[in-house]
C-alpha cells in the first residue's frame, strides 16, 4: 500500500460523511474458523487466567496494592521495571516482524478490538437475527418487539462488559477476594470504579465504535503501511480475472457471456467489518480479516469457478513476479527479535532476587570522632525479592584498618520486605590516601550463598594535601 494512495483516500468526501452503521454479514470458511479459534484461545485465556492458582498465590497477578507482580513462580518488584520495558520492546518488534511478513495479521485475528467486536456481533446476531433482519429492525418504528430486542441485546452486552471489567480488575487485585466482595456487594470504591470504567470501554468500543476504533483511534493502522513491502501478504482482488463483473446464471462459463469471474453479488462488501469494497484495491481501512476471501470462495464454489478470486497474495505475485520471503527487512527484524528475547531470558535466568542500596548520609560529608577517627554514615537498604525469608551478612572493604559499626548485626528480611538500617564506618586519617575513596559492600545470604550482591560506595574524608 503506497502512502500516497492512503493520503489521497483520507481526503475523499466519503470518509467525512456522517458515520453509517455497518452490518457485517456472518461468514463461514477457513479464515473465519481461524478467527473463532483465536477468539476461544485469547478470550478464553483472558477470562480463565486470573482464576489459576500457583504455589498458594494467584498464578498471574499484577498486585498493584502490594507493588508486586506474580507470574507463576516469578515475582517482580518495581525495581524490575526494566523487564517490562524490554518485554514491550519485544512485543513491538514482533508486531513489526509479523506485519512485514504477513500484513495485518494482528488486526484480523488477534487485536482485542477485533476479538471483542466478534463476540459482540455474535450476541447481536443471536438477538436481532441476520444482517437483513438487523437492517429491517433498525428501519422499523419503535414497537414493543423492537424495544425488547434492543433491550435484551444491550443487557447482554453490558453483562459481558461488566464481566470483562471484573476480570480486568482481577489481574490487579486478587480475584478470589474480589469475587467474594462482589457476591457480598462489598466492593471497594476504586475497584468498582475500574470495573465500570473498563466495562464501559469494552461496551463502547466493541458495541458502538467498532471499525471507527481501527480507522480513527489506532496508531498502528496509520503507520503499518510503512512496514509493508512488495513481498508482504495482503488481501487482494484479482482484477484481471474478475473484470468485467456482472451477474449471470449458475455454471455459465464467464467467457461465454463476455464477463470476468466476479458475479457482482456484493457479498464481499456485506461481510466486511469496515464496510469497504475490496474490489476497489487496497485500502487503509482493510484490517486483513479475510472475511471477503471466505465468502467469495463460497460463491466461486457455487458458480463452479476456481477459488481465490479474492486471496492472500503479495504485490510481487500480482505483478507476475515471485514472492521473496527471506529479505533483509525480515532477517533484520528476526535477528533483533531473537537477540533481545534471548537477552531477556538470559538476564531473567541469572537474576538475583536481592537488592542492596547504599545511601550516604546527606547531612554531613564526614565527622571527626573523639578518638580522631573520620566517620561516614550510610543507610543500607536490603530488599529481599525472593519468595523465602533470608538472613544476610554484610561486609565492607576498601580501606585499610577501617572499623564498621553496625548496630543491626542480624540482617533478617522476610520475603518481599525492605530492611533499612544505618551503619557507620570509621577510618584512621593516616590510612586515607585520597579525599574520596571507594568502598565495596558485599551482601551474602547465609541461607543460600548464591544470593550475593555487590555495591560500591564512597568514603569522604578531609582534604589531603
Amino acid at each position, binding site marked *: 500500500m503506497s502512502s500516497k494512495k492512503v493520503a489521497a483516500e483520507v481526503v475523499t468526501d466519503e470518509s467525512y460523511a456522517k458515520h453509517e452503521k455497518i452490518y457485517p454479514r456472518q461468514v463461514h470458511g477457513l479464515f473465519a474458523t481461524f478467527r473463532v479459534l483465536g477468539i476461544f484461545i485469547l478470550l478464553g485465556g483472558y477470562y480463565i487466567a486470573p482464576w489459576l492458582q500457583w504455589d498458594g498465590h494467584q498464578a498471574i497477578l499484577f498486585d*498493584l*496494592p502490594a507493588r508486586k507482580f506474580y507470574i507463576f513462580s516469578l515475582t517482580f518488584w*518495581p525495581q524490575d521495571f526494566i523487564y517490562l520495558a524490554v518485554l514491550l520492546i519485544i512485543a513491538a518488534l514482533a508486531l513489526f516482524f509479523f506485519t512485514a511478513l504477513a500484513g495485518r495479521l494482528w488486526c484480523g485475528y488477534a487485536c482485542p478490538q477485533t476479538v471483542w467486536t466478534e463476540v459482540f456481533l455474535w450476541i447481536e446476531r443471536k438477538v436481532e437475527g441476520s444482517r437483513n433482519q438487523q437492517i429491517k429492525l433498525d428501519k422499523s418504528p419503535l414497537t414493543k418487539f423492537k424495544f425488547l430486542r434492543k433491550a435484551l441485546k444491550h443487557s447482554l452486552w453490558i453483562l459481558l462488559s461488566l464481566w470483562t471489567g471484573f476480570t480486568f480488575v482481577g489481574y490487579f487485585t486478587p480475584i478470589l477476594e474480589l469475587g467474594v466482595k462482589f457476591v457480598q456487594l462489598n466492593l471497594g470504591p476504586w475497584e468498582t470504579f475500574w470495573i465500570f470504567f473498563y466495562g464501559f470501554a469494552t461496551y463502547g468500543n466493541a458495541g458502538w465504535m467498532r471499525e471507527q476504533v481501527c480507522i480513527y483511534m489506532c496508531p498502528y493502522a496509520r503507520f503499518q503501511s510503512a512496514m509493508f513491502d512488495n513481498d508482504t501478504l495482503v488481501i487482494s482482488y484479482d482484477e484481471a480475472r474478475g473484470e468485467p463483473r456482472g451477474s449471470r446464471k449458475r455454471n455459465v462459463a464467464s467467457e461465454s457471456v463476455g464477463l470476468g469471474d466476479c458475479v457482482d453479488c456484493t457479498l464481499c462488501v456485506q461481510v466486511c467489518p469496515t464496510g469497504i469494497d475490496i474490489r476497489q484495491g487496497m485500502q487503509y481501512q482493510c484490517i486483513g480479516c479475510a472475511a471477503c476471501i471466505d465468502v467469495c470462495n463460497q460463491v466461486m464454489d457455487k458458480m463452479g469457478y476456481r477459488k481465490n478470486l479474492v486471496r492472500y497474495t503479495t504485490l510481487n505475485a500480482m505483478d507476475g513476479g515471485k514472492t521473496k520471503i527471506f529479505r533483509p527487512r525480515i532477517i533484520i527484524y528476526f535477528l533483533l527479535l531473537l537477540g533481545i528475547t534471548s537477552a531477556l531470558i538470559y538476564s531473567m535466568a541469572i537474576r538475583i532476587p536481592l537488592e542492596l542500596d547504599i545511601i550516604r548520609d546527606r547531612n554531613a560529608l564526614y565527622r571527626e570522632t573523639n578518638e580522631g577517627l573520620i566517620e561516614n554514615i550510610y543507610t543500607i537498604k536490603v530488599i529481599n525479592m525472593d519468595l523465602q525469608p533470608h538472613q544476610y551478612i554484610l561486609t565492607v572493604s576498601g580501606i585499610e584498618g577501617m572499623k564498621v559499626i553496625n548496630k543491626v548485626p542480624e540482617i533478617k528480611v522476610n520475603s518481599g520486605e525492605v530492611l533499612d538500617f544505618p551503619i557507620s564506618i570509621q577510618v584512621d586519617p593516616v590510612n586515607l590516601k585520597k579525599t574520596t575513596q571507594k568502598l565495596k559492600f558485599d551482601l551474602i545470604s547465609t541461607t543460600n550463598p548464591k544470593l550475593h550482591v555487590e555495591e560500591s560506595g564512597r568514603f569522604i574524608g578531609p582534604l589531603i594535601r
Partner: protein
Amino acid sequence: MSGQDNNEYDAKQIPTVQKVIAVLWPSFLTAGVATILFFAYFDPQLLMQISGYGNISRMAGYTIGFFLFWLLTSVTCVISCYFQRPCEKDKH
C-alpha cells in the same frame, strides 16, 4: 473554543468523533505510560505520607494519579489541536 465561523476547513471536513478521539485517545495512551513510569518509581502511599496529605490506599493513589496525568495530557492535546487550525486568513 471559538473560531468555527472563520474556519470551515476544520468544522466541516473532520467528523466530531475524530476530533474528540484526537484529544482523548492520545492523551489516554500517554497518561497510561506516564502512570506506569511514575508509579514504578514512586509509591503513592509514601508520597502522600511524606507530603502530609494523610493516608490513602494505593489503588486510590494510582487512580487519582492516572486521571491527573490524563487531565494534563488532554489539555496538551486540546492546545495542539487548537494550534493546528489554519491561521485566520485575510478577510474578504
